[in-house]
């Protein structure tokens, strides 16, 4: 398990934006994962998707790592941001924009505004 933890840590610390999800960004296999991947895709954020369904050790390991019981899990610059509910709330409130700006992650503000306009 130590190997899995190391692997997870290196992935999170070595990649600006990482989404642990069920399925892939192109073919999500869960509505909650799909929503978060969809937001990031729509906002033009470059991110690495880790399909937990492809690896049981990572599926359990990521939950232990973050002490968070559910998938998806979004990490930005090594920091755990949250799951589907939190990412959704932060997208609509503009907090996600601020996080990306603070962390120096490129994203489309115009696309984020479109999401907010569509959900207003």
């Amino acid at each position: 398990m130590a190997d899995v933890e190391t692997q997870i840590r290196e992935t999170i610390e070595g990649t600006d934006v990482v989404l642990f999800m069920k399925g892939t960004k192109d073919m999500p296999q869960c509505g909650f994962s799909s929503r978060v991947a969809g937001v990031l895709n729509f906002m033009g954020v470059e991110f690495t998707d880790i399909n937990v369904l492809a690896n049981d050790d990572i599926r359990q390991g990521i939950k232990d790592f973050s002490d968070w019981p559910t998938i998806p899990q979004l990490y930005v610059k090594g920091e755990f941001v949250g799951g589907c509910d939190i990412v959704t709330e932060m997208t609509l409130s503009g907090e996600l924009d601020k996080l990306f700006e603070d962390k120096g992650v490129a994203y489309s503000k115009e696309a984020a505004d479109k999401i907010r306009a569509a959900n207003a």
Partner: protein
Amino acid sequence: MSVSEEIRSRLEAAFAPDRLDVTDESERHRGHSGWREGGQTHFRVVIAAPSFAAMTRVERHRAVHAALGPDLVGRIHALALTVEG
């Protein structure tokens, strides 16, 4: 006691919330992974309590997970959470 009732009773005991809605949304996920006949697998919880006010979003969710406990969280396939202070 149904899973919904267990969720409700544990959250009431932990937070004495001003607002608590526990909805079994399993039917909306019929056929999805984790779904089973009879429901009680996918839930939406809306909870508001003063003790959440000073917490970050992640802390709020962690507090709810902790109050439910790993055994109950382990039996729920999906939990959509809205937590307000």
